[in-house]
């Protein structure tokens, strides 16, 4: 009996202690007419060897393509030590640290995580993680509304330069609470928030979301945007890429006061792409908002001998205490990913993270240089970007992506599908991180040229 350690003798003893004849009898409070007739459609159990073989085959079935897609999920080098340590049984198989004294490992790691996220974002305090960046942004919106109860509206200004999938997720999460998301258009020439249109906003709003870098890889003018929103009496939610923060100003220092809430996806910090999850949303805020933060928070305290230690704190915000009045319903979060992120930042250090960021920028510029000479490709937003950029193609973007896939390349993201009405015809979003070598970039450019040539019948 896989995973069941009972011997038949033990089973007999246990049944006799309970005073029943069979295990079946233990289910006698379930009305018989409800009892299930088995699990026929579930396959029979397999040995670990069989499952290993099957899964190994499935994992290899699609090859290991060269990946130039980003758009919220980024391929970075993951130091080997990280997952070796994070998957140690003591981290991997522990529950939420309800018994603090028996969980100092996890608790200290999360306290360190909070400190690192606060440092990275330039904010005062961070929580212990949210599910992912997209749902985290949803939580940030809810939080801004909660924190701003006196506000005259529940309107959020949401730039179109925020990933459209993120916007969809936020919509799903906040729509039952009378919150409206008003989309702010982007400037067709440089791919950033259209400041003129933004400033035309006359109705009151609760908060402005500012992505940095934005979905197109372009850098928003975060200082003036932050100051403008604050002048309107609104809050600012900074949506940031944590690797970019090694080089770009921290949201805590945007404008004169800094943002109120910083949120984002920490996947780039040591977490594999893994088809989109498990990732980890991070969220940090100003000290004065700490009681509005959703999710777990770890605090440092002392034990009865005065020795320093850690425990979950401010639990009165949470669902298990506050129930229907909680700041959020989140319970299980992404603890193991917080551990991973902490390990990544500890191993890389300030220097390491800066170098990763710089290498992304350099490689991206290098690929842009290569593509500049490609016939038919244009750069609708120019080329001042972090590690992603948009090109428009002289051929059907979906066909290009498919043809590149044939050559074992994930070419990027078809963003035409999201911005069809914005004139971004056949636009492709391309990402280059430190993982790409000069040869990889040359291979990408050559293949793309070839593919376009084939698709356009050499018209380019």
């Amino acid at each position, binding site marked *: 009996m896989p*995973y069941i350690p009972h011997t038949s003798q033990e089973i007999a003893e246990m049944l006799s*202690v309970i*005073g029943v004849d069979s295990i079946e009898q233990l289910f006698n409070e*379930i009305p018989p007419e409800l009892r299930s007739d*088995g*699990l026929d*459609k579930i*396959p*029979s*159990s397999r040995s670990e060897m069989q499952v290993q073989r099957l899964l190994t085959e499935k994992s*290899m*079935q699609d090859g*290991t393509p060269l990946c130039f*897609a980003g758009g919220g999920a980024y391929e970075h080098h993951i130091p080997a*030590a990280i997952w070796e340590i994070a998957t140690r*049984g003591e981290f*991997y*198989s522990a529950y*939420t*640290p309800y*018994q603090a*004294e*028996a969980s100092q490992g*996890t608790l200290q790691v*999360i*306290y360190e995580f909070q400190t690192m996220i*606060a440092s990275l974002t330039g904010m005062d*305090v961070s929580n212990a993680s949210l*599910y*992912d960046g*997209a749902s985290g942004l949803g939580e940030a919106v809810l939080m801004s509304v909660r924190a701003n109860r006196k506000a005259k509206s529940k309107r959020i200004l949401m730039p179109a330069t925020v990933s459209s999938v993120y916007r969809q*997720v936020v919509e799903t999460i906040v729509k*039952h609470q009378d919150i409206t998301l008003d989309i702010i258009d982007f400037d067709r020439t440089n791919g950033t928030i259209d400041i003129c249109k933004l400033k035309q906003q006359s109705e009151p709003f609760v908060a402005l979301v500012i992505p940095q870098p934005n979905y197109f890889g372009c*850098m928003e*003018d975060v200082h003036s945007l932050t100051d403008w929103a604050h002048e309107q009496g609104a809050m600012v939610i900074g949506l940031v890429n944590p690797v970019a923060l*090694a*080089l770009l100003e*921290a949201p805590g220092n945007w404008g004169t006061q800094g943002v109120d809430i910083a949120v984002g996806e920490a996947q780039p910090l040591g977490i594999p*792409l893994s*088809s989109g*999850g*498990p990732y980890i949303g991070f969220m940090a805020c100003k000290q004065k908002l700490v009681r509005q933060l959703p999710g777990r928070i770890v605090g*440092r305290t*002392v034990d*009865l001998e005065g*020795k320093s230690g850690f425990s979950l*704190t401010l639990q009165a915000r949470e669902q298990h205490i506050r129930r*229907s009045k909680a700041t*959020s*319903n989140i319970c299980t979060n992404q*603890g193991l990913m*917080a551990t991973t992120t902490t390990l990544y*930042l500890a191993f*890389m*250090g*300030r*220097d390491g*993270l800066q170098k990763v960021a710089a290498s992304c920028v350099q490689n991206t510029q290098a690929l842009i240089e290569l593509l500049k000479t490609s016939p038919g490709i244009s750069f609708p937003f120019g080329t001042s970007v972090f590690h992603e950029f948009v090109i428009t193609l002289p051929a059907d973007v979906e066909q290009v992506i498919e043809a590149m*896939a044939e050559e074992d390349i*994930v070419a990027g993201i078809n963003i035409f599908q999201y911005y069809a009405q914005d004139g971004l015809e056949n636009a492709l979003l391309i990402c280059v991180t430190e993982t790409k070598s000069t040869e990889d970039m040359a291979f990408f450019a050559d293949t793309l040229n070839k593919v376009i040539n084939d698709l356009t019948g050499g018209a380019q």
Partner: protein
Amino acid sequence: MTQLNEAVIEDKLIFEASDFTRKSSSLAPDIDVDTVAKSLPEHLLRKSDLQLPQVGELQVVRHYTSLSQKNFSIDTHFYPLGSCTMKYNPRACNTLAQLPGFAGRHPMAHSSMSQGIMSCLYDLQNMLMEATGMKQVSLTPMAGAQGEFAGVAMIRAYHDHNKDDARTEIIVPDAAHGTNPATAVMCGYKVKELSTNDQGDVDIEALKAMIGPQTAGIMLTNPSTLGVFERKIKQIADMIHEVGGLLYYDGANLNAILGKVKPGDMGFDVIHMNLHKTFSTPHGGGGPGAGPVGVSGRLQPFLPVPMVALKDGQYYWLTEDELSLSIGHLSAWMGNAGILLRAYIYALLLGREGMQRVAEFATLNANYLLQRFADAGFEIAFPERRASHEFILTLRKEAKQYGTNAMDFAKRLLDYGFHAPTTYFPLLVPECFLMEPTETEAKTDLDGFVKAMELILEEAKESPEVLKQAPYTLPVRRLDDVKAARELDLNYYQSHAE
């Protein structure tokens, strides 16, 4: 004599070992940062200090390896945390899910390059449908609470779709997990709390009194968090359906009934599952989880996207393009895909036979433990009921007689090498221990646990102070939670600025 001199190196924070002038890593690319930074817009560059630790690699390894040893975990301890289902986590689930072909796949990779993982998810959808008796499953919610959100949002979408907008209330039993009422509120509902009778069943009369055209639905878990099976479930379902409401099943306790009774057969319209419980994906010190939802036919149009579908032998993503009534996306892509993969692997390993055994032995272990505790003189909260996969013990007698409350027992258990059960939940049982041994614990460990509790009971009688000061053998003694909340220290650099 045995004391150590005070100078023994205290465990530090990683920040205390940091020195910004240290450059020791082999992990970063070799590049001149300043030159590259010049190519970015000057006014957007980081001017503020980046306070990340600079520590040698060996020192980082040591720091976190040593920290890990300060945790209790299922790999090291019996961990009968009620409602949390801390069961054996086969290592193959992790190693296989981390295979490069899975770990390296970008979520936006073309579906022609993703058939391997998609076939796994598709199979998992099907297995979960069979296990729960529901019509269709969407895997995307990232934990139980998000599954609840998806479920209640579907209930709302259903009523909205029917223009039935008088339904403003969700009924939640007083014993329910906190996520239930919190979720109902996030979906814009008012919460009506339903009381429980002294047998742990829902108070049917009270229920009768509160339902009506205003009722959007009810959230139940069965067996409930009181560790007993709600015997009148069919009657409840009929009552709710009669008034036009829907039934939500909180699947956190699915371990108790896997293969024995299916939520679909009990009359539920929508359920979530906690794969990190029943399907043994790692709890990871707080997550990640996975909270797939399953629905009956009438809620099918509203399922969250994406899901995986199969056409002409090719798997593809089912999105709002085809499911126009979907409540939408809950995550940027496919939720915690890597966790779903682990659950799939576990399901393959268990197979049909193994799943049947889950509920059987989880129930056997719980009922055995219950009886042993009853025999040892502890008070059982619902002594006339069968335990499901978990049960409740109340220590109110001990609290009164010896002044040792449930928390004191819990802390002392740690000294004996056992993680404590869930304490003070459900809220309606005073000084309670919610105990869930799970099916993967051996009888000898259960016996050891009972023995420890007996010894602690002795200690409580003879020297209650021993309990009140526990634990003694852990990295720290009892921690001051009040100070933690009053004098907030959540960020090293902020609290230790100087």
